[in-house]
């Protein structure tokens, strides 16, 4: 009985790895189906690990090892990125974060996630930032690695009038909602995002609330937005 099940699961997983998810989805028994799905995830992970092992990455590892040991993580990451993706680091004066240009951010993000020395597999937080009226906007990413337990901060500046930053939704899945929230609050458009809509405010809300020059709209669908209070100035 259980051998049959195992065979069924392994068959289904094989099919699914080739892109045919119907086999798994058509398994009648719920328990078996969930087991098959779990097995699929495991198989994918193994496959990914195998690819990672196969792919020769000596120069990257060396790149990190070659750096002096007393450098902080931020400096190491910054040095490695500067080497791998030239002209992306804007300045490396500050020690607390990496100031980057918007271009290649998607590739860099992927690199940071997959590089075995860094393995930033978790995007902790995406913060929009406004330098003030008539100045630039900025997006700040807090990356964290569950394996190595280290974290860095990456900042990307963008123009206030045409704010655009590449989306990392496909690198870290939570990027989806974080970027939508940043868009909602600051109007920063993340290029390549699959569903760039407001998330917290209503879709037809006007203005970008967390910008410093934001002014509350007068009415929203006939509702007066600013607070009105009798006998209270």
């Amino acid at each position, binding site marked *: 009985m259980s051998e049959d099940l195992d065979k069924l699961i392994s068959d289904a997983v094989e099919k699914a790895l080739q892109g045919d998810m119907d086999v798994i*989805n*058509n398994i009648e028994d*719920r*328990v078996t189906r*969930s*087991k098959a*799905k*779990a097995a699929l*995830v495991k198989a994918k*992970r193994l496959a990914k690990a195998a690819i990672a092992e196969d792919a020769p990455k000596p120069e990257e590892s060396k790149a990190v090892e070659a750096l002096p040991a007393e450098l902080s993580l931020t400096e190491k990451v910054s040095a490695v990125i500067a080497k791998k993706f030239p002209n992306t680091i804007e300045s490396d004066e500050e020690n*607390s974060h990496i100031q980057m240009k918007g271009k290649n951010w998607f590739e860099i993000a992927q690199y940071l996630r997959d590089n075995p020395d860094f393995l930033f*597999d*978790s*995007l*902790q*937080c995406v*913060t*929009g*930032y*406004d330098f003030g009226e008539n100045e630039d906007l900025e997006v*700040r990413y*807090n990356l964290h690695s*569950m394996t190595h*337990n280290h*974290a860095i*901060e990456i900042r990307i500046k963008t123009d206030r009038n045409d704010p655009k930053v590449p989306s990392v939704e496909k690198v*870290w*899945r*939570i990027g*989806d*909602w*974080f970027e939508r*929230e940043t868009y909602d*609050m600051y109007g920063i458009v993340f290029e390549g995002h699959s569903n760039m809509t*407001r*998330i*917290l*405010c*209503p879709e037809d809300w006007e203005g970008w*609330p*967390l910008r410093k020059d*934001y002014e509350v709209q007068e009415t929203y669908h006939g509702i007066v937005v600013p607070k009105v209070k009798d006998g209270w100035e």
Partner: protein
Amino acid sequence: MGVIHGDLMTLNIGPQHPSTHGVLRLKVKTDGEIISEVEPIIGYLHRCFEKHCENVTYDQVIPYTDRCDYIASMNNNFGYAVTIEALMEIKVPERVEYIRIIVAELNRIASHLLALGTYGLDVGAFTPFLYMFRDRERILDLFETLCGARLLYNYIWVGGLSHDLPRDFVESVFSFLDYFEPKIEEYNELLTYNKIFIERTADIGVLPPEVAISFGVTGPNLRGSGVKWDIRKDDPYSIYDKFDYDIPIGAGEMGTVGDCWDRYYVRMVEMKESAKIIRQALKGLPAGDVHQALPKKIRPPKGSIYKRTESPRGDLAYYIVSDGSPIPYRLKMRSPAFTALSVLGEISQGWMMSDVIAILGSLDIVLGEIDR
């Protein structure tokens, strides 16, 4: 045998629905009982917490943080206070640290009790819900003697506490723990190991660890998937490294690792661990003045900080940018429930109507924190 697919029906679960835990709307596409797509729509409770914070001083932010995760206000206050203290490099007295940990862990128990109780309600068991609320009420009574408020405490301040423990507080916490710890066994018998409950939750809504990490899911939800990750242990703040306690993780005892039952059970065990921490902290509680390190005026130096703490729902982090004035220039709250909810669409595909409710309940979201 071929499978017949009819047209999909769009169904709105919420914003007004008994089991959405607030005003959440789930746009669900169903094929009969089977769910093929879930899209959470949030923002019904949005009140622009972050914009508010940019207009009030640092100490006035604390009542606002109370209202984000209103089930675990102490932890929110705690996180905020720890963040500002790290930015200002304040060293708080040891008594303050101990008291903070006692109240934060008590609040964690209260929050988990609510999460587990309403989860029972989601799967149809009414009585465990009331038992858990009965015990939660005792914690709230403790908090009432502590600071007068039952839900929104404003107790942990930057650099200290609003006031010291009342007399006999330590004894009453001990007696509460003596009362409470046997109750966990009763919950287990009544609900956790009930066959119907297991059938409803085991193997449902499996959240694989990779997906969880990629979605930024943290806290009991991530631990339920078998990842041993807890800020209290892995990036200790305050004095959590002084205590001896375990981090429970999901083991797939009743089904697959990362299913609803695991998430539920991790919370159940966590309550025991919190009780352990509280006992140790109560025993080691030093004397001292809790107001000693309170700054006269909170004016953090220029700079920014990102600091994580472990709230009952996961990584609660504040990103604070200070421009040297007494008003925060930018305050961003990374709420754990926000990321936990975003994974719902991913893990609830292909399950049934009732399962989606069960999965949503097992994620333990608080809409006040998601929408901020």
